[in-house]
């Protein structure tokens, strides 16, 4: 029996059995913060209240449907109002609402209280990746989806965390209040981790904040929750909650990694090294729009193969890069193209420029390769 048939049968068996299978998650994820716990309880409270009302109201309706039928000879009464009844069924729901509003209000105040945080992380949404900036820690990195395109295209078996895995997860210490400062560079995104009970829009040009304090170590996965274009479904959020020690070790390692990356800008790179590095940078950051083969998706995302920018001159007679040149476009972006100077280091930008000028069917003759030092100088 093939996989499709198994899926189909399991779907059918759920309909019959009522869903005892663990794969069928029916409720909110198990909370790991106090706020998420309160949300969970609030939701259950409302569900039970609604269920109660549901049973009473539709119990009455189905009783009536059964008893007051013409086919069993029931004669229609002709009443059409009853003031006491009408007042009662206006007041009772209002009282029930008050009972729900009270705990909900308390939770809202708690959710909005971002004071006395132990640490702050600035999170920026980009089409279609997240950037994490640990303020005052000198740690800043991009977090990309790490699921392969082949898995998405059904050419490869899908992994356990399909679409919910990233190359660089956010790492935070357990039991610490983390203030998350959110913004976006292009369109609105939303940063959502269900287990934390946190969902906040990231709005370009504005700073919004939220917070969480995870009580349990583990890896928690969320997704962008605001439609942000083509790859909206492909920019997950992964947060690893670890012990304080592990967190400190991670911080040091991340800072060293960044320093090593920056150091690469000072040496002369060979064309082969640039091309090899450029290919990985391209596939991670550029292929989502310009496609792996450089053909793009015109008109929204132009082709790189044969592009005037990728083949044309970069530097003017004064030795500086020209407006609308390859370096200008990479550093400063234009329209949907992000300004990569904030996202990639000198080596990455130089190598991906070199790669796109010499691969993907291109062979630029003017300014054929670009060195990291040139990018450093151009910033």
């Amino acid at each position, binding site marked *: 029996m093939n996989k499709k048939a198994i*899926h*189909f049968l399991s779907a059918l068996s759920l309909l019959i059995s009522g869903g005892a*299978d663990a794969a069928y*998650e029916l*409720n*909110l994820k198990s909370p790991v913060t106090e*706020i*998420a716990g309160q*949300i969970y309880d*609030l*939701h259950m409270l409302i569900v039970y209240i*609604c269920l109660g009302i549901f049973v009473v*109201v539709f119990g009455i*309706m189905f009783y*009536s*449907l059964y008893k*007051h*039928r013409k*086919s069993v000879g029931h004669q229609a*009464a*002709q*009443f*059409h109002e009853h003031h006491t009844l*009408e007042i009662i*069924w*206006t007041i009772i*729901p*209002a009282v029930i609402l008050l009972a729900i509003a009270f705990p*909900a*209000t308390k939770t809202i105040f708690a959710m909005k209280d971002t004071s006395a945080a132990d640490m702050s992380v600035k999170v920026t949404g980009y089409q279609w990746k997240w950037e994490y900036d640990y303020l005052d820690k000198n740690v800043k990195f991009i977090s990309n989806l790490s699921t392969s395109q082949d898995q998405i*295209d*059904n050419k490869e078996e*899908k992994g356990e*965390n*399909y*679409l919910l895995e990233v190359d660089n997860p956010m790492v935070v210490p357990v039991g610490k209040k983390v203030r998350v400062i959110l913004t976006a560079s*292009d*369109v*609105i995104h939303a940063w959502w981790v269900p287990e934390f*009970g*946190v*969902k*906040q*829009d990231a*709005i*370009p*040009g504005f700073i*919004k904040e939220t917070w969480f304090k995870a009580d349990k170590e583990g890896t928690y996965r969320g*997704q*962008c*929750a*605001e*439609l942000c*274009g*083509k*790859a*909206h*479904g*492909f920019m997950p959020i992964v947060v690893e909650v670890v012990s304080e020690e592990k967190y400190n070790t991670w911080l040091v390692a991340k800072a060293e990694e960044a320093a090593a990356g920056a150091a690469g800008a000072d040496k002369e790179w060979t064309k082969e090294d640039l091309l090899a590095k450029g290919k990985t940078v391209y596939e991670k950051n550029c292929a989502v729009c310009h496609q792996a083969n450089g053909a793009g*998706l015109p008109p929204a995302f132009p082709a790189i193969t044969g592009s005037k920018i990728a083949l044309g001159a970069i530097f003017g007679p004064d030795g500086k890069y020209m407006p609308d040149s390859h370096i200008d476009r990479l550093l400063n972006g234009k329209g949907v193209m992000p300004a990569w100077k904030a996202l990639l280091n000198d080596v990455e930008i130089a190598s991906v420029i070199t790669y796109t000028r010499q691969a993907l069917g291109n062979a630029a003759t003017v300014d054929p390769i670009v060195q990291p030092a040139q990018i450093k100088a151009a910033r």
Partner: protein
Amino acid sequence: MSTTTAAHHDDHAHGHPTGLMRWVKSTNHKDIGTMYLWFSFTMFMFAGALAMGIRAELFQPGLQFVQPEVFNQLTTLHGLIMIFGAIMPAFVGFANWQIPLMIGAPDMAFPRLNNQSFWLLIPAAILLVASFFVPGGAAAGGWTMYPPLSVQGGMSVDMTIFAIHILGISSIVGSINIITTILNMRAPGMTLMKMPMFVWTWLITAYLLIAAMPVLAGAVTMLITDRHFGTHFFNAAGGGDPVLFQHVFWFFGHPEVYIMILPAFGILSTIIPTFARKPLFGYASMVYATAAIAVLSFVVWAHHMFTTGMPVAGQLFFMYSTMLISVPTGVKVFNWLATMWRGSMTFETPMLFSIAVVFLFTIGGFSGLVCAILPVDIQLQDTYYVVAHFHYVLFSGAAMSIMGGVYYWLPKWTGHMYDETLGKWHFWTTTIAFNVTFFPMHFTGLAGMPRRIPDYSQQFAEFNMISSLGAFALGISQLLFLYVVIKCIKGGKKATNQVWEGAHGLEWTVASPAPFHTFETPPQVK
């Protein structure tokens, strides 16, 4: 429905055009109502086909049929066309057919305006459908068109905005016509508090339309000037605010929800008393509840924006006002139950649809209450839970009321009884398939599946497959609807004037099918 007697109008001094020109130039409320209904059904099938594309892609994890950018076009246009092309025109179709018949008026107050408001729909529909074929494809930023994403889109976004402007003009003109007709052309003796409930709900809906549509026009106009004329209403870099669009949009958007549901309430309040053979319970409280819902609908808009990060005071205000709406809505549900209570019920197709709507709309109301609770909404906003919620209110609320209404009045429109067996088949397949499609979405949403994504992690695979199977069945069921309607137009058992044993009101005093001209002499209402 084109069977209105040819012999009848010969004895009138003013003959009217026949053939195609009869429809193009029509100033007759019945013909225009018919055109509205057919237009609506066409758009319903088109937008439904887009939904089939969505569900086919979501049948399994991975990308199978469409690329993500095309998927976003499907969801965007599915929403826009269902709302502006299917649901709203269907209710205007009912208004055209039924309001003059129900209040004893010979026609609408402004027949030529009526013709214009219908024919404006056609260019708007062409713009929306054609936008799939322009470079870059159709608008893909969601039906809500939030900037800055919608500013990135191609020329299809401009076509969509232009279509919205045209549809807005059509709605406003239509509403003015409806209000004028109701306020000025009621038969002698029909006071406002004697009007059929359907007329009341439409009167209030028309005011909502006049208040809300210009707001939407303003929002999309700012969008188009941001796109092309260098303004920065929604661009923070130029001193604007992307969230301003959301405020303006939802100031329209929430009343819009009630624009799509109040006439449905009117249809239920007509059908249920007929088949319970008992007067509508709490007529006056029904009118007040409708008005209360309409007023409240203007002060709840930001509950669509709980995750934008408003100040606490704003969050609390919009949470409380939203919760409050459930009170008048509850009153309506209780009134329908009390109408059924101790009646003498029969279960013809219109009644089946009405009972299902009361039942399923209430489920949509419950999930609405869950979403109203701000902390819970933080988890549910932009997930499949919301998709489940609004399909429970818009499909099993609005669309199924429309179906019930069509079955209810079809004999009056065509002069024939529809095929009851097939009607019931349509009812059961629709209701079951609808629930199979949308009920599991509550679970996928709770478990954390965001909406508007073309691919999902494997934990959601089972429920999505069930939803897709349900959706395909739901789509196919509507072909049966088309068949039943065509069969009824072509022939069937002759309908009596009263059609239904328990039916009361002026529309049931005229012949079936309703003659081309009715109530040329106003009837007297006691």
